[in-house]
């Protein structure tokens, strides 16, 4: 895809030998591997899409493993994409020929930190939604703890679509715009989340008050949050 791998350091005004010396002076770095990443990064900063594609190919698996360990497999893929967007936004902050991996994983930590902050806020909103529903119905529509747990078991993407639609009252067009997905994808996520919630909260409980109450715009019956 690129010829830069054969000529490390060429764009930096360094001879290959000088480039190797500078790269190998960084502790614990595999010279060849790191040189390839640096070359990709230099090409990327120069405006070449191949540089980005090479960087993606070299790092996507490592980032996937990092996020899977830190945030779970369901979320890892989304966070990897967010990290590459962050890399794109912040590409000026990388200065060759410093190692690329610490820079990339520094940005990945930022993405993870923001994801955790957003998750925490979402949980707060969900808890608030449960309180509002309880206040509105005078008694719990469903057990608040059960609902929280059920929501937590959903993949974050589905949960977000469901909460935005059923709790915040967003249209699917708004959700699609917010999540950068299609309207059909937003409907699908919400619908799958609803089915999962119904299954999780309805089975075994046998309580009528857990049955859906309202028919929503998606053609689904009800909303456990009211």
């Amino acid at each position: 895809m690129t010829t830069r791998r054969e000529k490390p350091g060429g764009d930096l005004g360094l001879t290959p030998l000088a480039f190797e010396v500078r790269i190998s002076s960084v502790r614990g770095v595999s010279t060849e591997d790191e040189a390839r990443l640096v070359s990709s990064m230099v090409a990327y900063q120069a405006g070449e899409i191949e540089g980005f594609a090479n960087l993606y190919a070299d790092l996507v698996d490592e980032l996937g493993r990092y996020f899977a360990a830190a945030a779970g497999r369901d979320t890892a893929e989304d966070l990897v994409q967010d990290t590459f967007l962050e890399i794109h936004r912040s590409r000026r902050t990388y200065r060759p020929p410093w190692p690329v991996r610490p820079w990339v994983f520094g940005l990945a930590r930022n993405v993870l930190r923001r994801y955790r902050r957003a998750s925490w806020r979402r949980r707060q909103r969900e808890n608030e939604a449960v309180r509002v529903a309880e206040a509105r119905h005078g008694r719990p529509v469903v057990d608040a703890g059960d609902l929280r747990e059920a929501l937590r078991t959903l993949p974050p993407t589905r949960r977000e679509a469901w909460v935005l639609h059923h709790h915040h009252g967003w249209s699917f067009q708004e959700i699609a715009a917010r999540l950068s997905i299609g309207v059909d994808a937003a409907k699908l996520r919400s619908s799958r989340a609803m089915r999962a919630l119904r299954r999780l909260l309805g089975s075994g409980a046998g309580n009528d008050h857990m049955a859906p109450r309202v028919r929503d715009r998606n053609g689904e019956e009800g909303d456990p949050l009211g």
Partner: protein
Amino acid sequence: MKKETRLAERRLPPPPLLGVVRDDLEPVRPYLPPLLRTLALLPLGAVLLVGIPALWSPRPNLPLLGGLAGWGLSVLQTLVGLVAVGLALREAVPGRELSRRALGALVLVAVLVFLALTLTSEWLAPVALRRRVWAAEALGCFRMAATWGVPALLVAGSLIVRAAATRPVVAGAAIGLGVGLSADAGMRLFCGVSTISHVVVGHGAAILLLVALGALAAAVADRLRS
């Protein structure tokens, strides 16, 4: 073979991500290294050092201190402040974060220089401050240091905001410390009072304020960025 094909496919950026990157792929020039950006802030340090005594008047007991203890220690404190700014700029680069030991050393050196300047001034040019004017003098110095320091913090802090610091609060606090020390270095050439209680409360509080403002601004910028 199928598995290899699947892996090869997975290592290509997804089309939406590739589209976003491709749409905004103009060549970018990496930021200058922290050292050069710090050198670019030398005029700011000089303004803080010379501006305060030049705009009002140098401290009346400056001749008692002599060149080395008067100007020399203030210049030294300005340089330590610029080092703090440089370290903050380095801290703001993902993957180049400072170790705890380096951060501890920075704080220690800052405190030592601040105390050295205070004690030397007190020793060579003691001033007895009347109790009834103590608070007014301390407040006056605090205000003046903050008045000079806050705009300088905005200038230096803009370099942090553009970065993608993994520890924005640390980077912001370090840059606040640097600006605070530099502003205080100028204040010492204007304020003739070296009483320890006055210096700690009036001057030290201004430095702490700038540290807090730097940390707060960096945290807010990080939130806005996400």
